[in-house]
């Protein structure tokens, strides 16, 4: 079709209808070519992880990390999940997985709840000094963790929360608060203020407006917050190391332990399987809700 139109115009016939655009224009080749290469760069590590985790050790030693497995074996996965050892504990990652779940659910729920209420209060119920606290909080988003790791150890000790799940949850809530609060504040600020005024005229109070008016309108931002928190908390390493004990180690810490507990030779396949297993939860969350995430970000979530 396009070809046809071209010959006609070349032979002097009037242009008519849509301008012919060849599929293989240099522009398209450039764009798709670049994107393709970029996609390979980004996809490669995942591919390597998957492929390596499905190989046996001998095959790895023969060594092309990019080659697909000749003989697919799920043993590394089984091993990583249930058998890999750290010291005397040979339970693999499974325990860490459940620990992470136990840490994740309350931390994410609580931090999102608190941050959304904070954001709501800051957006709609400004009181004297609220901006000051907010500024401090935002400043907190940029404070290197190292600056406050140690004092928090002391605070947790005084609260008798150190090493307990509750302590770690509290730490996650605290460190998630600045960014989430900013996110929610910006979002609630972007909602029409008149809605809030209307509800006040209708006699709804602080909580009434929050639960009945604001919450039902905030799905996009909750999705963004949820994704950020789930990935953030799941992927956390530093707090997991410092503020928990081995019983409660989250998955990342166990991953690091397993990968660094070398017995004889490094079992790259098991390591990669363990790595995959650790990454799988955030990946699923991300793949399942990527579009919403992008939309939420675009909705001004990250602005300002």
């Amino acid at each position, binding site marked *: 079709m396009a070809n046809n139109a071209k010959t006609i115009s070349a032979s002097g016939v009037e242009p008519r209808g849509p301008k012919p655009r060849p599929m293989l224009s240099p522009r398209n080749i450039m764009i798709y070519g670049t994107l393709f290469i970029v996609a390979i760069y980004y996809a490669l590590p995942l591919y390597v992880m998957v492929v390596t985790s499905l190989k046996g050790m001998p095959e790895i030693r023969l060594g092309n990390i990019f080659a697909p497995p000749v003989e697919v074996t799920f043993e590394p996965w089984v091993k990583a999940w249930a058998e890999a050892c750290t010291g005397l504990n040979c339970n693999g990652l499974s325990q860490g997985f459940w620990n992470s779940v136990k840490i994740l659910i309350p931390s994410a729920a609580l931090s999102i709840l608190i941050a959304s209420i904070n954001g709501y209060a800051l957006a709609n119920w400004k009181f004297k000094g609220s901006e000051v606290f907010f500024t401090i909080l935002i400043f907190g988003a940029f404070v290197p963790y190292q600056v406050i790791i140690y004092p928090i150890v002391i605070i947790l000790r005084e609260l008798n929360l150190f090493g307990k799940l509750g302590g770690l949850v509290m730490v996650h809530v605290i460190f998630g608060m600045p960014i989430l609060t900013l996110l929610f504040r910006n979002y609630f600020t972007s909602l029409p203020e*008149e*809605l809030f*005024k209307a*509800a*006040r*005229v*209708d*006699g*709804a109070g602080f909580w009434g407006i929050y639960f009945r008016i604001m919450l039902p*309108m905030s799905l996009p931002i909750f999705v963004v917050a949820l994704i950020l928190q789930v990935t953030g908390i799941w992927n956390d390493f530093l707090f997991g190391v410092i503020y928990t004990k081995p019983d409660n180690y989250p998955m990342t810490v166990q991953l690091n332990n397993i990968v660094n507990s070398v017995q004889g030779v490094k079992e790259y396949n098991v390591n990669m399987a363990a790595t995959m297993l650790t990454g799988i939860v955030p990946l699923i969350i991300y793949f399942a809700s990527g579009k919403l995430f992008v939309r939420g970000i675009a909705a001004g979530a990250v602005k300002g």
Partner: protein
Amino acid sequence: MTSVSIQNLDLNFGSVNVLKQLNLSIEEGEFLVLLGASGCGKSTLLNCIAGLLDVSDGQIFINGKNVTWAEPSERGIGMVFQSYALYPQMTVKGNLSFGLKNARMPKQEIEARVARAAEILQIEPLLDRKPGALSGGQRQRVAIGRALVRDVDVFLFDEPLSNLDAKLRAELRVEIKRLHQKLGNTMIYVTHDQVEAMTLADRIAIMRGGLVQQLASPDEIYNRPANKYVADFIGSPAMNFFEGQIDADGKFNVGKLTIDLKNYDFADGTAKGEHWLGYRPEHVVLGEAALSMPVHVEAVADIVEPMGSDTLIWTKIEGHDFRIRTDGQQKVAAGDRLVVGMDPRFASIFDKTTEERV
């Protein structure tokens, strides 16, 4: 009886003084329109009345009760917003009953009130829809309904029509007027559209920079504007102004043109010295009839804008831009010579420095 009374109201945003010692009192059943340019503090004043802003100083009384510190929901007011501010996740019914539920009213009573409001506003068939599925006009009605069900004494409107297109705006304007006739509540209505103000108001308060410039009936404001600002603000196209002197004989001189002001009702005898003379474009008379007017002068049509029902003519008289509004059947073309007739009775004179009407 006074329905709403505002005494020495001050409102500051930080160091910005938005309302300045404002006094206003509104009679029961009156339809008061707050009119003014953008940013003059209309919404701010309305929010103060509604209790959505904490006043910096002064007092607000509604139905004789001091409500300066009362919560918005306790003031006996209902408010309709520019964006309607309907709760998007609730049905129309939910929207209407939200305030009543908050007040813990018995279910039956709620039902009854919602039904009554829906009937008044003719939105019965929409009760189970969500706002997203309503047209602009329907949303507007629901927004009014939300105030209606609460059986309030005072309705506050903040530019309720400015998001709508011209056609719908004209229709809903009439509906609001009908509603006011039917309900008889006090209504305070903010707009910056002078057509709305003129058509709806019992009285108009023209605001500027946090001060009320003139508070009077539409007729008065249109015909006897209190100062040059008001005169310029009201009327489209805007009033024509001449800058000139009034001499000892009570004659206004601008360039070669002399206008005898003997029929003009000065506030105190006559005035002298530098003044502005304002004349509305629609009071100009053209053609034959112009010659019989006390003042007539020749001019060349610069631009002609036919608007169907009327025609606007832009011209220049004595170096001042001069607009003429004449009816649509008058065939004038750009470049035509015109005879322009004016009647000093319709003119307004403003002091050059104070810009107050004399």
